[in-house]
C-alpha cells in the first residue's frame, strides 16, 4: 500500500471515528505538477486527497484561520517536517493548541514520499534534533554565498533591483503561517512606519521588517518564495536571519512547543562583538 492510500485510510478513520472534524490535505491542482489545499470533512471525500512529491506547501498556515480551533475540536493536517516546526512555533506563541492538531507527517526525498511516524507535534522531538543542521539547497546556498561575498554597495544594488519588483501584493504574508497578526505593521498608518505605495523605499522597508519579524521563527518552508509573483528570493533573506539566531543564540525555530521567542528572551552572556 502506497503512502497516499495509507493516509487516505487514516484520514477516513479519523473522520468517521469523530477524532477530527477536518482533514487539511493536498488535492490535484491546475497542472499535473501542482497541488492545491483541500479540506475534507467526511470519510466519503478522502479520495480527493493526493500525496506525492509535489505536495510541498506548508499547510500549517491554514490552522490559524480565525475560529478554526476555537470549538475545541481536533483537526488533522498533512505536514512535512517544516510544517511540524511551524506547529511548534504556533503552539509556543499560543496561536494553536497542539493537542488539537493531528499531524499526518511525511517527508519528500527526490521523487520519494515517505510517512513519518507520530501524530502529535511532540512525537517529532527526535526529528527536530536532526534538522538543526539542515541548510539551503546547493543552488540557493551558492546564491547566498555570492551575496555574502559582494561589497555592501553591490548587495544594496542587488536587493534594490529585487525589491523594485515588489508590488506589495502581500502574498508572502498570506502564505506564511507566522503572519497571524490581526493587523500587520504595514497596515499601521498612525504612524505610517512603512510606506505602502509600491516604490522601492517602501518595498525595502516592508521586506526588511517582514524578515525581522520572522527572525528566529522562519522554518524555511519556502512558501513566500514560491508565492512571490515577481520572484524575489525571499528565502535567502529569511535564511540569513535563521543562520544568525542559530549561530549566535543557538535558537532553532520550532524545535519544541515550549520554546521561548528568541527576541523576547536573552542571556546575560549573549555575544556582543559589535558594540562600542
Amino acid at each position: 500500500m502506497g503512502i497516499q492510500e495509507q493516509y487516505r485510510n487514516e484520514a477516513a478513520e479519523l473522520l468517521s471515528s469523530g477524532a477530527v472534524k477536518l482533514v487539511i490535505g493536498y488535492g490535484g491542482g491546475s497542472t499535473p505538477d501542482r497541488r492545491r489545499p483541500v479540506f475534507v470533512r467526511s470519510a466519503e471525500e478522502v479520495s480527493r486527497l493526493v500525496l506525492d512529491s509535489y505536495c510541498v506547501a506548508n499547510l500549517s498556515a491554514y490552522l490559524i484561520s480565525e475560529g478554526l480551533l476555537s470549538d475545541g475540536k481536533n483537526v488533522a493536517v498533512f505536514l512535512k517536517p517544516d510544517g511540524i516546526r511551524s506547529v511548534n512555533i504556533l503552539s509556543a506563541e499560543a496561536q494553536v493548541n497542539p493537542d488539537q492538531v493531528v499531524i499526518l507527517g511525511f517527508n519528500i526525498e527526490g521523487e520519494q514520499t515517505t510517512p513519518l511516524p507520530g501524530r502529535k507535534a511532540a512525537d517529532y522531538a527526535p526529528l527536530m534534533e536532526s534538522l538543526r543542521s539542515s541548510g539551503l539547497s546547493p543552488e540557493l546556498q551558492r546564491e547566498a554565498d555570492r551575496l555574502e561575498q559582494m561589497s555592501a554597495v553591490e548587495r544594496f544594488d542587488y536587493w534594490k533591483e529585487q525589491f523594485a519588483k515588489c508590488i506589495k501584493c502581500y502574498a508572502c504574508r498570506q502564505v506564511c503561517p507566522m503572519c497571524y497578526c490581526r493587523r500587520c505593521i504595514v497596515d499601521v498608518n498612525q504612524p505610517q512606519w512603512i510606506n505602502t505605495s509600491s516604490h522601492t523605499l517602501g518595498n525595502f522597508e516592508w521586506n526588511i521588517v517582514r524578515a525581522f519579524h520572522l527572525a528566529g521563527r522562519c522554518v524555511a518552508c519556502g512558501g513566500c518564495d514560491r508565492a512571490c509573483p515577481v520572484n524575489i528570493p525571499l528565502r535567502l533573506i529569511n535564511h540569513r536571519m535563521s543562520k544568525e539566531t542559530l549561530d549566535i543564540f543557538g535558537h532553532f525555530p520550532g524545535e519544541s512547543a515550549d520554546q521561548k521567542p528568541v527576541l523576547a528572551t536573552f542571556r546575560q552572556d549573549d555575544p556582543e562583538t559589535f558594540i562600542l
Partner: protein
Amino acid sequence: MAKIGVFVCHCGENIASMVDTGKLVTTISEHPGVAFSSEYKYFCSDPGQETVKKAIRENNLTGVVVAACSPRMHEQTFRKACAEAGLNPYMLELANIREQCSWVHTDKIQATDKAIEITRSLVEKVKRNNNLQPISVPVTRRAMVIGGGVAGIQAALDIASAGREVILVEREPSIGGHMAQLSETFPTLDCSQCILTPRMVEAVQHPNITVMTYSEVEEVDGYIGNFTVKVRQKARYVKMETCTGCGDCIQKCPVKKIPSDFECGLGNRTAIYTPFAQAVPNVPVIDRDRCTYFKNGKCKICQKTCQIDSIDFEQQDRMVSLEVGAIVVATGFQVQNTALYGEYGYGRYKDVITGLHFERLASASGPTAGKILRPSDGKEPETIVFLQCAGSRDAAKGVKYCSKICCMYTAKHAMLYAHKVHHGKTRIFYMDIRAAGKGYDEFTRRAIEEDQAGYIRGRVSKLYEENGKLIVRGVDTLLGKPVEVEADMVVLATAMIPQPDAKEFAKRIGIGYDEYGFYNEAHLKLRPVETATAGIYLAGACQSPKDIPDSVAQASAAAAKVLGLFSKEQLEREPVVASVSDSTCAGCWGCVIACPYNAIDRRDITDRNGNLIKRVASVNPGLCQGCGTCVSFCRSNSIDLAGFTEKQIFAEVMGL
C-alpha cells in the same frame, strides 16, 4: 489644531553665546503649529516661568517646547509651570540646546542649525503628546514579612512600631532563624540569644504583628499595594490557642533519639518538640514522620499527659489567603553542604565540623552546655584547626563569592575557645583576613594578640586521621613551606549559600535571583532593598551573605521603604506606562515573556454571556515601570508607551 508655544532660553550667555537665539525664534515661529515663540534670559527664573504661564493662558497653547537645558535639569520646573497655567504637565518637551548643543560646539552657525533641528523635532513630538494623569493605585496598608530570622523580626518590629499591621510568616515551628543558634556574636561577644530572644518576644507580643509559625507562603498574586498571599499553615497537632508551653508532653514523649536540626545533629529531640528551649511561640509541634501514633496508630502519650487537652491528632493543614500591600522577603541562607570537600574529611571524621556546629558547642544552651567537646569521644580538644574559605571563593565548588562572615566568626571561635580552654592551641588557615566593619579589624587583632589565635596564610590540601589525631597538611604561603598540624578537632568555615528552595520560591513570588539563587535587588547601588517587582523588598542574607549588623540595617531600610509606601492611601506613579490595543493584539505573549517586571498578564475578553472572544495581553499599570521593551517586541504594534508613543517618536524623527 495644535497651538505650540516655543520658549528659547539664553541661559545668560550659556546658550546665547553659541546659538543665535533670535534666528532660532524666527525660524521656529514659521513652523506649522507654532502659535507663540519668544526668547528670554532665564526662563527657569520666576519672571521667566511667569512669562511661560502667561503665554499659555493668553494663547490657549496646547503644548510647550522650552529650548533650554537638559530635561534632567528643569523638566519638573516647567511641568509645574504648565500645570499652574492649566495645561497638562505632560504637554511639555525640553529641547536640550545647552548641554547637548551650545556647550559642546564651537561653530555658531552649525550650533544654531542644530538647535533649530532639535527644537523643530520636539515641536513635532509635542504636537502628538497626550494629556496624562498620574496613576493612582490603592494601597492595602498591611505588610507581610516572609522569614522570622533576625532580619524578618527587625523589619516586622519597625513596621509595626510605626503603626502598621504586619504578618510575620516563618516556616519553622519557632521564629529566631540562624541567629538563635549562635553562641556569642562578633565583635562584642554578647550572647546571641540574650540579644535576640527579647526581640522575638517583642515581635510575638506586639499588637500590630501577627506571627504565623510553621507556615509557608505558597502563592503571591497581585501587585504593589494589592498583593494576595496564600499561606499554608501546617498542622502542628497542638492547639495554639490553649497550649501553655508547660513541656510535659515533651518530657513524656517516648521517641527521644531524633537528631535535632537546631543542634546540627549534635543533640537529640523528641517527636513532639520545640526546636529550642526559648522557642517563640513556645508551643510544640508533632513531627508526623517520627511520631509513634502517626506511624503505628498507638501511643498518644502526649495527649494523655496534657492536662488541658491541647493535643489534636486530627488537625489539618490550613490555607489562608491574606491581603497585603507590601512584602519583605527575609528568607535567609543555608550553610553549604561540605560533603563536596572530600579532601577535608567532613562526614568521614566526626571531629571535622562546620562553624555552625561549633556555635552549638560554644553555646551555653547547647548540647554540651557551652563546653568545647569533641563529638567523637566527648573529650576536650587540645588543638583546633580552623579552615577558612571552606567553599567560598572557590569557583571549582560553585561558590565564587566571599561569604563575608567567616573571617569574623572564625576569629570569634578562636577567642571563645581560648577563653574556655586556656591551654588550647588554635591554627587558622586563611586566604585573606577580611575584617572590614566597625570594630572588626580590632576584633581580629585581639584574637591574634590577646588570645593567641595562630593564623597561617595558606590552603589545606589534605586531612586524614592517624592515631586518634586529625593530621592537617597545608602550606604556609608567607614562609613558603609546607605545614602539618596534629589537631583534635577541625572547624570548616563553610560557605553561606541560598536556601535550597530559593530559586523555586523566587519564581513563586515573582522576583529575580542570581546564578547562585540569591535574590536580585532592583539596583545594586541605588535600590539595594527593592526587588524589580514593585512592592517586594529584601532583607538579610537571602540577598547576599551578610552578618547580623548588615541584616538588621537592611531590614530597617526595607521597613522604611514599606512605610514610605504606606504613607499614603493611594500610590501615585508617573504615567509613563505601556498599554495594549485589545483589537489588534494577537495574543502571542512575547511581551509577557519579555517584560522585566512581570507587569503584563493575559486577559480574557468575553461577550455578555461570558463566552470567550479572545485573550489579549494586558499591562498592569501598578507594575509597569515604563521601559518600553514590550513595545519594540510587538510585531503588530499593539502596545504603546505613554510619553514615548510610536506616533511621538515617529514625528520626532521625521521632524529632524
